[in-house]
């Protein structure tokens, strides 16, 4: 009987000590917020386009970090962003939901613009300038190609154009060899290994 008492007491006391130590540790090592959000947000293209189903890049980052959203919802970021997030999160990469298109920019056909400022209000990065009853213009260097301005325009005078490719921004493609392709494909299917 005493044996049992000893056992219970010692185990209980030991567990209590361990519990107290852990409780203190919890206080000392308390983590404010989620530092992963910031890191994921830094990988996103900041188009604020909402194509991921979240109202902006930061909310999507929060959802990914919290494990609510998958890593493959960012459309403009494409494969590279998906791989980078998967790598950071240490999860298996997933196929993209939608194929990323070539970079686009919005262009206002000025002779048709009625100067309603609706597109200016819609632009998440303030890339459209103009005043009421004046022609609006897209600052092409600032446009992220999110297409959010298309919908509000009452006269459909906004086009999405291909972003012009600059010779300075041209870069070499992967060498055209079997081995290069093999190595590259492997990376795409195997990045972010657990």
């Amino acid at each position: 009987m005493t044996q049992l008492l000893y056992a219970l007491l010692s185990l209980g006391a030991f567990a209590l000590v361990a519990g107290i130590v852990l409780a203190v540790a919890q206080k000392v090592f308390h983590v404010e917020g989620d530092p992963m959000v910031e890191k994921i947000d830094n990988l996103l293209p900041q188009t604020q386009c909402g194509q991921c189903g979240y109202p902006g890049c930061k909310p999507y980052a929060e959802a990914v970090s919290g494990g609510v959203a998958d890593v493959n919802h960012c459309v403009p970021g494409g494969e590279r962003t998906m791989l980078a997030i998967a790598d950071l999160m240490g999860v298996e990469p997933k196929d993209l939901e939608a194929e990323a298109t070539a970079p686009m920019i919005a262009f206002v056909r000025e002779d048709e613009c009625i100067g309603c400022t609706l597109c200016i209000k819609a632009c998440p990065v303030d890339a459209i300038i103009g005043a009421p009853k004046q022609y609006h213009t897209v600052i092409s260097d600032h446009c992220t190609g999110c297409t959010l301005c298309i919908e509000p325009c009452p006269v459909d005078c906004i086009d999405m154009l291909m972003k012009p490719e600059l010779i300075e921004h041209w870069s070499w493609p992967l060498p055209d060899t079997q081995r290069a392709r093999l190595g590259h494909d492997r990376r795409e299917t195997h990045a972010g290994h657990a």
Partner: protein
Amino acid sequence: MPVMLSPPHAHGGDSIRMVMLTVILALLPATMVSVYLFGWLAVLLIVTCMVTALVTEALCLKWMQRPLTALLDNSAALTGLFLALTLPAAVPWWMAVLASVFAIVLGKQIYGGLGYNIFNPALSARIILLISFPLHMTTWIVPMSAAEPALNLYDFSLCLNFFLAGPDALKVGFDAISMASPLGYVKTEATLGVPVLEALKAYDYSYLNAFLGFEAGSIGETSALALLIGGIFLLARHTITWHIPFSYIATVMLLSGLFNAIYPEQFTPPLFHLFAGGLILCAFFMATDPVSSPVTPMGQIVFGVGCGVLTWSIRSFGGYPEGAMFAVLLMNCAVPLIDHYFRPRVYGHGIKDES
């Protein structure tokens, strides 16, 4: 639309096939010595290993749907030859076949083929054999150079019989036809408490014989002279650099010299270490296998020193008499990390202010 070609448009003309062929050529002296010492047994072993290696490689390539032209790079033939030279003459045919298949499949193709293997294929196959069949792998047939060879190894039918059916075919036991290798003998005597020098005397050890290779051992590892000729050929052809062989051998010599000077009773002298077992074979041919050794000069020196320390430690303290092959395999494990951490200083980085 032409293929996108980046400079340089000139090429030095080096090729993998030539590199492999050079190594095979460098192994010729050792191969000839092995044939002289072990007669038809050596021939049978080498041919079996090389043919099996080539056939296995072909099957693997076919199975993985890769072009069979990869056979022409000579790497499979080289692996077969390497493997044969590290095996003792007492190995029967099925073991040789098994080892070759291991070497090609487990050692190389499973990692994606030439260039991707982590471990030296021939050595990994040999270690698998050593651990699976310790009796066969430590039975050293008396070579033809001995005063009274137990078997006439120049007799083709006798050798074929032996190769196909083992010692039973000749109605002899392993004991009757084998002798101890110097390393093994010294190790056994040491466990019985016999001092090194007495053991060597009892073995009738001679440095000259060891240098020329007239002693028991794996068929290709005995002759230091033949291997050195090959090694120097490789160095001259710039197929290998001095870093690994030099640092490897120097480390073994240094450690053994130091300990032999302090405790001559317990530790064997450096020259004994140099000529015994597979040290020279490993230092010039196995450890320098480009795929499984580091790329950078600094890394190669680290690799060589590591091999040296491990070889000497296993020989001196370990359970196995020979440590060279284990040492190389162990260091193979560390190659990716060595490659990463021992890169040369890049031009313009980390220079101190010069006055």
